[in-house]
């Protein structure tokens, strides 16, 4: 089997189904402060399934609201634009990729992505990173895997076979079979979709042990990814905790009690959100 070139990969990415317009708009507005929240609310309401899921999460203990949130404009006003963007992005993205046949574990993929998103959101404040951006970056960190599984399903089956035979990390198997890994593929897709540069970088660097010393969003996603695997939230038998950056880990400097509290929060929030988003 000949390896697809990076150019071919990018061409395949361009043939991927377009993301819902509202998600592209939300992602491109991450760095803008002057987004028209009212117009945004109206757009969300046009997609009823999206609006319904958004309201269910707005009313979950994830946000701990005292009173019931009953409409999208209400949700936007009480939760704020940043939170709404996170919710809508999560709901829309998880519904944007139709499962393919051929043995790729879609459910396990999204469970791990959501677990990483929840962990990233909880870890972010400890590194002065915006929690909402961290959630989105966590959700998208393995985007490249989706491209490989849906557009290069034969190669991806080989990658999974290699991974199983060698019991190695996915990126080792990807490099052996394809010569590139899901982080590279994912960052190409994030760039094609014009995601904010910070998110592109987090997708590209979440396994880049040598580039995580500077902290920030890539480090939050890197550690969140390891914690999500360590808490065994993907439900996959062959889950494997990836190598952790020593320098990055030390930047968190949390007490044991603080870690235990975080683990508990991540487990319960993931449990609640997965029932809504991945239902």
């Amino acid at each position, binding site marked *: 089997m000949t390896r697809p070139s990076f150019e071919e990969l990018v061409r395949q990415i361009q043939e991927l189904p377009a993301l819902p317009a509202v998600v592209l708009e939300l992602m491109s507005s991450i760095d803008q402060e002057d987004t028209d929240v009212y117009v945004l609310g109206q757009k969300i309401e046009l997609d009823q399934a999206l609006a319904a899921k958004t309201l269910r999460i707005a009313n979950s203990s994830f946000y701990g609201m005292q009173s019931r949130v009953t409409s999208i404009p209400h949700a936007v006003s009480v939760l704020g634009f940043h939170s709404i963007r996170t919710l809508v992005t999560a709901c829309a993205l998880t519904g944007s990729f139709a499962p393919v046949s051929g043995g790729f574990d879609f459910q396990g993929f999204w469970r791990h992505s959501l677990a990483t998103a929840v962990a990233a959101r909880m870890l972010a404040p400890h590194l002065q990173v915006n929690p909402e951006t961290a959630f989105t970056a966590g959700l998208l960190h393995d985007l490249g895997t989706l491209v490989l599984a849906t557009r290069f399903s034969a190669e991806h089956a080989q990658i999974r076979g290699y991974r199983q035979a060698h*019991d*190695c*990390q996915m990126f080792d198997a990807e490099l052996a079979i394809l010569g590139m890994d899901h982080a590279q593929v994912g960052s190409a897709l994030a760039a094609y979709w014009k995601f904010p540069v910070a998110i592109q970088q987090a997708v590209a660097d979440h396994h880049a042990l040598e580039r995580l010393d500077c902290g920030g969003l890539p480090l939050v996603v890197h550690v969140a990814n*390891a*914690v999500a*695997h*360590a*808490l*065994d939230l993907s439900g996959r038998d062959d*889950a*494997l*905790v990836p*190598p*952790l*950056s*020593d320098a*990055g*880990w*030390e930047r968190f400097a949390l*007490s*044991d*009690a603080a*870690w*235990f509290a975080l*683990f*508990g929060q991540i487990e319960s929030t993931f449990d609640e959100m997965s029932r809504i988003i991945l239902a």
Partner: protein
Amino acid sequence: MSANTHGGSREIALEQAQEGMVLAQALNDAGGAVLLAEGATLTAASLAALRRRGVERCSIVAEEAPDPAAWAHAEQELARRLERLAVLFRTTPPEGSGAQLLGLLQRYRQGGQA
């Protein structure tokens, strides 16, 4: 052993009573005056006072008798979770941050004592 268990409480000799135990029944002196109320936690000082007043026995709240089946199940569950951690961390080197994360998770699964 002069212990007598019934209905969530246990009657014991005062010399067996220890600090931190909780009275299941008020202790009265010979005249009927309450020395220590029901629910009071015994302290070194109150135990000394009770001895001075010649109290010989007291009734304390019995600790939850562990249900052996539930206990065995919890033990099994913990063993299963610790085994699973070893599988999840099967390629993590024994030194470094990965090993630290594993150590945290092991203690978290055992009840999270810092």
